[in-house]
């Protein structure tokens, strides 16, 4: 993955760069809005990580300019402010995801990889499968081998979310945002409880565990199973 970081704080930029590079991604850095925009328009990137507070030109403007030329280029917005209206404004003006500083580098990595590898037509699939597990999106049915598994609505959505990001880590707050549609930080191990229920139904009676825990970060369904 080739990523462009537009961020004026050198510490944060270095933090992101080292995180992405240690995961084997290629990284470029620009420290102001104007140069960042030029670079984003001139070269091909798989992902732009964009800070909102920037010198020369703010992040929202940069985002609009990028969108005018590359409607499909994934953009991850960063903000020091945790204001919801910033988040809403960012997502409305075309950002693909939003992250509030400070963040755990795993969170950023998970989101960045999710964005860069997001297949454009994924939403049109009617069936998701991994190993012997099949998710029928139209009939909302889950089967593993020959057995049909009875899942509740939220459990189904959790599984769907994990499957759509197959092979990538999905963090707890990503799950909360995508399954429950709320931006907030839970104080307890809420998501873990939901996952453990899902596991009970999906994994317990079968030999190969499907959902793996990535310590300190989130969950993943491995791609190697298929």
């Amino acid at each position, binding site marked *: 993955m080739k990523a462009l970081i537009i961020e004026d704080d050198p510490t944060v930029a270095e933090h992101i760069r080292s995180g992405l590079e240690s995961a084997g991604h290629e990284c470029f850095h620009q420290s102001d809005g104007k140069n960042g925009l030029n670079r984003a328009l001139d070269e091909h990137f798989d992902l732009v990580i964009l800070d909102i507070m920037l010198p020369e030109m703010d992040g929202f403007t940069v985002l609009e300019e990028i969108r005018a030329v590359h409607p499909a280029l994934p953009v991850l917005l960063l903000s*020091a402010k945790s204001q919801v209206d910033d988040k809403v404004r960012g997502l409305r003006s075309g950002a693909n995801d939003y992250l509030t500083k400070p963040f755990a580098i795993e969170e950023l990595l998970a989101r960045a990889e999710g964005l860069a590898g997001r297949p454009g037509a994924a939403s049109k699939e009617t069936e998701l499968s991994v190993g012997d597990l099949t998710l029928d999106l139209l009939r909302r049915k889950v089967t593993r081998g020959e057995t049909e598994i009875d899942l509740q609505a939220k459990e189904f959505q959790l599984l769907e979310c994990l499957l759509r990001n197959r092979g990538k880590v999905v963090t707890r707050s990503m799950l909360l945002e995508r399954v429950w549609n*709320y931006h907030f*930080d839970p*104080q307890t191990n809420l998501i873990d*409880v939901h996952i453990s229920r899902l596991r009970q139904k999906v994994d317990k009676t079968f030999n190969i565990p499907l959902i793996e825990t990535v310590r300190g970060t989130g969950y993943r369904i491995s791609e190697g199973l298929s």
Partner: protein
Amino acid sequence: MIAIGAFTRSSSFRVGALFTALSSAGILFIFYFWSLADDDKLLAEAHSAIAAEKFLFSELYRSGDIEQTISSVNRRVSLPSNDTLVALYDSNQKILAGNLQRLPDHDATNVPVILSLPITEYLSKAVANDSYLATSDYFLIDDIPLGEYRIMVARSVEALYSTQKIGRALGWLFIVMLVMIAALSFGVAIYVVNRINRMSRTASDIMDTGNLAARMEIDSNWDDLSRLAIVFNKTLDKIENSVKNIKQVSDNIAHDLRTPLTRLRGKLERMPDSELRDDAMAEADNLLGIFNSLLRIADVESERQRAGFERVALHTVVNDVIDLYEPLLEDQQVRLTTNIDAVEIEGDPHLLFQALSNLVDNSLKHAKSSGRIEVLLKQYGNRNIIAIFDSGRGLPTAEFENLDRRFYRAEQSRTTPGNGLGLSMVSAVTSLHYGTLWFVDNPLCETSGFGVVMSLPVRSSKSLSH
């Protein structure tokens, strides 16, 4: 309406009452004066003058004859600056002497007579415009017999009467003025008392709610009360500013500490795997969590988020929270009952979700196993009530007022996980939605318990905050 006690105890009301009392005393005095100055007293002088004339002429007639009396009468009326009408006439009403050519209609009473014709019609030609001075037609007339003749004596009393009339008019004027003063001072007293009461209500509101943004209304700018209000508002500005500054400083500290902490966490991440590393990371995450919560609360309190308000189906938010916590509740064998009406408000769904999940989280933390949690969402009148009741360990009611203070942890909950920011967040979110927060002791009537009630207005408009 304010209690009557508050009115009568105020100094301006007392001043007003004093003015009213003084004015009433003045009015009473005037009436007393009038009662003294009746007709008899007023006319006593004129009566005695007429009596003297009568006596003089009857003595003259008795000691002399009619001729002598006639010449005396004529001499009498020709005296300079004479203001008495005299007529000596016989039984045929023929005037023999005096300054009249015609007798006015009169009967011999003590009541003043008003002449039916102008005075010049009565005066004889010889004296008209000459020695007779009075021009009035208001007379006190007396008539006595002198043998077969009669003599009539009349004195003008108009000057006396007009003085009395002027006095009466002035008296009425004075009464009207006094009544006006009384009414005015009463009005002023009520106005001043009302304003002072409004001011004290604003002040006590600020004390009760801690809402430093409230200000006294200034409806004029010429009097001392408005000046007082202006000074008070300026004082509030100063206080609000200092409080804001203090908040700002603490928020800045949180903000500034967050960056090095993030760096520290980044460095920890790169350390080789070990239990120690994980512990240190968990600590760092915990600290970051606290700072994030602090900043988030500060952010909510700044009320900027109202810009992002939208129509929120409150019942959906409540149901989503329950949905999210349902497995945890089941794991802890806590029984959940709900009573949820469909209710919509203007608000921020994410913040409401956060606040409600904090509340459910709290209840769960303090729940005893096989305890009970009840979640209510109801509309009562113009308030939406969200209540979360539990049968947990409960809290002494003395602690209630401290619960929404940042980092406050009641004695009982020191052993449970948490950072003492959960209810601060709930409180901030409630105020953001123009609501109020209540705590209830043992709402489910079990052995112990704790309840939180969020009361949000149905119409949360901007006008409510300013």
